[in-house]
C-alpha cells in the first residue's frame, strides 16, 4: 500500500473521532514542538531483514540510502545547534556505506549517540568491524527483540534471527555492553508479536532480564516497550488477519491524555534518507513532511522555524498515546 492508501485506511476510526478531534476535546490541539532535543536520522530503507511488523517496509531489495552530502549537512547542523541526542536508524544502518565515517564525526560532537541496529549483520563480513566501531565511538545500541522466546520472535522477524541477535549480544557483552560500570549501553525494544498492545514496561523488563540471563547468559541495560503503529507492513498484517478495526478501536479506547504531553515528536526531528524533514519516523513512512510554515528539507534547516513548529498529526498518532504511551525511548508514562 502506498502512503496515500494507508492514510485512507487510517481514516476508518468508526465510532471514534479522528485524532485531531480527540486532542481538541482535551484542549491540546494543535500539538506544538517544545524544541529539538533529538535528531533521528534514517539512513535508508535497505535492510538484510524483512520483518513482518516493519513500518519502514525495509528489506534487501530497497535502494533508498542517505548520501554523504545529506549526512554532511546533518553534522553541520548538529555542530551548530544545542541538540543533545543523535539517533541513527534505518533500515539497517550498517548497510549505509557512510555509517562508519558519520559515527566518527558525530562522536566528536560529544552528544548522546544512538544506533538502532538489528545486530544480525555484526556476525558477518563486511560488517563485523562495527562491533569495535560502536565501542570506539561509545555508541548506545538499541536493538529490537520482540520476545524472549525464540519461536515467537522469529515469527515476526524471520527464521534464525533470534539466534543471531543473541550471538551478537554475547559479543557485545564481552566488550562491555550492558555490563555494570562499562559506560557502554545496549537497550532492547520489545514490541508485540501480534495485534495487541505491549504490557507494563517494568514487568516485561523484569521477565526479559531473567529469561535472557538464565536461558542465554545475555545482559542488557533497559527494555523499551513500543506499540506497533498501524503503518507499513504492520498495517498490511492487521488488514490481512482481519484485526485492523479491532486494533484501531483498541488504540482509540486506550487513549491516555497524560501521554499526549510526552509524545516524542514534541522534542524530535526526523530526517529521511533524501533529506526531507518529518515530525517522526512514522510520518516519514506516510509521506507527511513537517508543515505549517517550517522548512521540510535539511538543506533549508532553520532551528528558529522548526523548534516550535506545529506537529503534523493523523490517526496513527493514537498509537503513541495509547495505554502507557509509546516512543523510541519506550513508555512515556508510568503504569
Amino acid at each position, binding site marked *: 500500500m502506498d502512503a496515500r492508501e494507508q492514510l485512507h485506511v487510517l481514516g476508518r476510526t468508526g465510532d471514534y473521532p479522528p485524532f485531531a478531534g480527540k486532542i481538541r476535546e482535551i484542549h491540546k490541539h494543535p500539538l506544538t514542538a517544545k524544541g529539538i532535543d533529538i535528531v533521528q536520522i534514517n539512513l535508508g530503507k535497505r535492510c538484510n531483514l524483512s520483518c513482518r511488523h516493519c513500518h519502514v517496509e525495509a528489506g534487501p531489495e530497497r535502494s533508498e540510502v542517505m548520501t554523504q552530502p545529506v549526512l554532511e549537512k546533518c553534522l553541520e547542523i548538529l555542530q551548530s545547534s544545542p541538540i543533545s541526542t543523535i539517533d541513527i536508524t534505518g533500515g539497517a544502518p550498517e548497510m549505509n556505506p557512510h555509517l562508519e565515517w558519520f559515527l566518527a564525526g558525530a562522536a566528536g560532537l560529544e552528544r548522546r549517540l544512538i544506533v538502532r541496529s538489528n545486530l544480525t549483520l555484526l556476525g558477518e563480513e563486511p560488517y563485523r568491524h562495527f562491533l569495535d566501531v560502536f565501542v570506539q565511538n561509545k555508541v548506545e545500541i538499541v536493538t529490537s527483540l520482540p520476545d524472549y522466546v525464540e519461536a515467537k520472535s522469529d515469527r515476526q522477524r524471520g527464521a534464525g534471527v533470534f539466534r543471531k541477535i543473541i550471538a551478537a549480544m554475547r559479543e557485545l557483552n564481552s566488550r562491555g555492553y550492558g555490563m555494570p560500570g562499562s559506560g557502554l549501553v545496549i537497550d532492547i525494544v*520489545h514490541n508485540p508479536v501480534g495485534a*495487541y498492545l*505491549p*504490557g507494563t514496561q517494568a*514487568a*516485561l523488563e523484569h*521477565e*526479559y532480564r531473567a529469561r535472557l540471563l538464565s536461558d542465554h547468559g545475555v545482559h542488557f541495560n533497559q527494555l523499551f516497550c513500543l506499540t506497533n503503529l498501524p503503518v507499513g507492513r504492520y498495517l498490511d498484517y492487521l488488514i490481512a488477519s482481519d484485526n485492523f478495526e479491532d486494533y484501531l*478501536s483498541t488504540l482509540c479506547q486506550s487513549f491516555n491524555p497524560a501521554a499526549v504531553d510526552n509524545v516524542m515528536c514534541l522534542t524530535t526531528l526526523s530526517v529521511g534518507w533524501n533529506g526531507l524533514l518529518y515530525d517522526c519516523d512514522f510520518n516519514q513512512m506516510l509521506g507527511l513532511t513537517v508543515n505549517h510554515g517550517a522548512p521540510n528539507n535539511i538543506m533549508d534547516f532553520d532551528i528558529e522555524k522548526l523548534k516550535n513548529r506545529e506537529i503534523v498529526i493523523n490517526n496513527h498518532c493514537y498509537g503513541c498515546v495509547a495505554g502507557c504511551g509509546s516512543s523510541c525511548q519506550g513508555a512515556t508514562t508510568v503504569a
Partner: protein
Amino acid sequence: MSYYEPKDLADFPNIGEWAAEQGNKFFEYYGAATGAGKLTEREKLLIALAVAMTQNCPYCIDAYTTKCLSLGIGSEEMMEAAHVGAAMMAGVTLAHTTQMRKIIKKKEM
C-alpha cells in the same frame, strides 16, 4: 443482535451507570486486587484468566487473554493455567460427591 458482543467489552468502564458510588468503589477494589502486590502482575493475570474460563465469561476471557499476551505470557503458560481451572472445577464437582455419598449411605438400607 447476540447477547454477547465483543465490542461490548468497551462498555465495562460504564458499569457504574446509575450507581456511581458503588461503581467507583468496585473499580477501586478491582484495581487494588488485580494490580501487582506480593504476587506479580503476571501471576495475577494467570489467576484471572483461569477464573474467567471457569466462569465462562467471554468478556473476561477476551480481556485477560489479551493482557496475558501483552505481558509476554506464552500460550503454553496460559494453557497450564486453564488446566488448573479445569482441574479445580473437576475437583470441586467430585469433592461434592462427599455430600451425595453421605446421603446415599444414610438413606439406603
